[in-house]
């Protein structure tokens, strides 16, 4: 297992090189907020919470830690005003996809919004939040794709993304022998960070298809 030295918030740390930066840091006790990362499924870059700044030719640039591979000498900052502000923005956008069955999610996001707020002026946007919630067909799902990815990984592939852009949705794919094909493992339910899949994937997604 190869290790490399990276510089995290001005401290030199030795981390594993064969895993995404977010995981490597996690193993060193540095926890970056994240909703769409799972060590079995790798980085996906959807939720935008794991943002850090890294040093590049063009200066400090924000990047997703779940999509970065540690390299020797990589310089990372995890707490700059830019980072906090971007996280707050991501959290704010994610909150629009709520409310979430899991209260921890609301708390985490609320907390991130607050931390970012100290660094920048944010207008009151309750109205806008309500508006975008009104158009959301699946409140509680942040489209992080973990359920889709895990179901594919266990070779059931019962879940898929449908549509694109702001109309993206997760959907359940019926099969001939539907009962036999799905429902028992609940892998998707266990991995879903927000608690959306309830009581089963079929119930959570199928009913919404024709809504």
């Amino acid at each position, binding site marked *: 297992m190869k290790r490399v030295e990276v510089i995290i918030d001005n401290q030199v740390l030795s981390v594993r090189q064969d895993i995404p930066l977010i995981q490597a840091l996690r193993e060193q006790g540095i926890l970056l907020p994240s909703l769409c990362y799972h060590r079995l499924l790798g980085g996906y*870059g959807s939720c935008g919470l794991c943002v850090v700044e890294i040093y590049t030719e063009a200066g400090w640039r924000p990047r997703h830690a779940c999509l970065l591979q540690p390299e020797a000498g990589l310089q990372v900052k995890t707490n700059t005003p830019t980072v906090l502000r971007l996280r707050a923005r991501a959290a704010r956008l994610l909150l629009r996809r709520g409310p979430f069955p899991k209260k921890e999610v609301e708390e985490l996001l609320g907390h991130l919004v607050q931390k970012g707020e100290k660094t920048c002026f944010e207008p009151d946007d309750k109205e*806008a939040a309500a508006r975008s919630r009104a158009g959301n067909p699946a409140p509680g799902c942040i489209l992080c794709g973990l359920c889709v990815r895990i179901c594919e990984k266990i070779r059931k592939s019962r879940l898929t993304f449908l549509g694109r*852009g702001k109309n*993206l949705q997760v959907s359940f794919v019926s099969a001939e022998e539907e009962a036999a094909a799905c429902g028992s493992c609940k892998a998707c339910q266990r991995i879903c960070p927000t608690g959306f899949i309830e009581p089963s994937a079929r119930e959570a997604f199928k009913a919404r298809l024709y809504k």
Partner: protein
Amino acid sequence: MIFPCHLQELAEKGKKSLCPSNPKISIGLATCGRSSGALDLEKKLTARQSWKSEVLVGGVGCLGACYAEPLVSLRTPDGRYYFYGFHGQADSNSLWQIIRAAEGVPSTRYLLARARERQPGTLQGIQDLELEKVGDPGFALFFKAQARRITGRCGLINPESLPEYVATGGYSALARALFQLQPEDVIAMVAASGLRGRGGAGFLTGKKWELASLSPDPERIVIANADEGDPGAYMDRALLESDPHSVLEGLILASYAVRASRAYVFVRHEYPLAVQNLRRAISAARAVGILGKQILGSGFSLEVHLVESPGAFVCGEETSMLRVMTGKRGEPYLRPPYPSSAGLWGHPTVVNNVETLANIPWIILHGPDAFREVGTEKSPGTKIFCLAGDVKRPGFIEVPLGTSTRAVIEEIGGAAPSSIKALQVGGPSGGIVPYSDFSLDYESVASLGAIMGSGGLVVLNTNRCLVDLARHLVDFMARESCGKCLFCRDGLAELEAMMTSLTNGEARSEVVLAELEELSKAVADMALCGLGKTAVNPVLTSLKFFREEYEAHARGKCPALTCRPLINFEIISSQCRDCRCCYLVCPTDAVKRRGGRELYAVAQEHCIKCRACYETCPFGCIKITSEGRL
């Protein structure tokens, strides 16, 4: 060896149909022509039994002067060309003009220009035509500032005819490469030419090929990207519809250069005519040994497959395209690895835009130095643009890179400079910049914060609301995003909501402007692929250059007088002649008849702002106002 007599035969055949000894009528049958009635003209002309063997009638692609469609040309046996344009009015009268012309009485009505083959009986492209007489000065101006290098055959040859392509010099670059050049030489020539990718990012084509050719993996693939999702841009379509073999030849050359054994064309299924012409071109080329095993008798073999794309904007992004081609959802992935080192099924893959590929035969035939004769140091060569919007002569043009906007917009497009406010460059992810005289090359456009994109050029006059336009573009991108990244999906949706609050008068302060700017930057920073990264360009550029329009909207005022919720219709009583037009035309009875000196007035609460009264009043006494919140 089949070469060269084989090509020679084809060329002879092509020459006969291109420069026949009978009068020949060619009708522009590309999509633009079809949409203005060209098929009907063709049907009627081919149906004339009495002509049978005397007058030939055939289809060609798009000449580019889309503004005058349907376009028909008549070639007389002495090598003269009469170009007719019917400006959307292909009626029986215009039909008769062509018929009479073909019968030897060329009329001057509808005549755009008359030209002559410099050497009668030989035609390689539009450069071989000498203008003899100008019918419509606009038509001459439209072509004057152009340099039709790779579009020279468009609108002159039959896109379905391999012989005509060969007769105009087609596939001679391929023959030259296969028999006289090593793959490395081809790469070196393209590298030396400085050709940059025409698909948007402007990456050096030679460099891309070199990377792929250096890969240890011997199985290499080349893909022609013909997905073209930019609304308003149709250069790839026009090329494929008018001259598909030139793209195919470029593709074969690229494959030879990187020693690929398989090539694909990834083409948007909404382009049925392009797909059809490409399919025909591929099978015609295969039939004569230009594709398949041992091309033209050389040691090089190649198969080309056509893949129809599902047609979402994001599918044109190269990594997303590669996924689609393996049967997955069109969702980009983070580079590196770049496709040129590991692309389709992990093999090194060169992805090139259609227009990029169409430049290759030219470079092989004329050499890199000749290629650099036009254009700028860093942006050599020519570029196709699709000129649209508030211009007199919209169309499909090719000019040297570095040509001034003034030459393009005013000379070619015929727009009056005083009426133009802004230019939208580079499609929905380009930028909205003030109209000024700047050079159209990659660097200059980038320095304004926009991108060249695939070459859309929309001219906007003073009646266009740029806030509304930017809103519209952001909305388009929010719908077309793959939806994987939060910032691209929800960030763009949020931006759109903010922009909507400006255009419908709900935004109550200028704070929203700072928000717009910050969120746009966040989207650009955090999106994973080029779509999200560039989607905010229209907002950022219009905010930078036209901030006062945004500020006005934040105060409830639309300076261009187009955002409906922010405008009012008013009747200027002093000019009213009591003709009753507005009163009669208003669909909601919002125009009220009054007594006294003020004859009519608009009841604002009933007005749906349909503009009917404004457009109907013969005395121009209705005005639109936008007072804003006081």
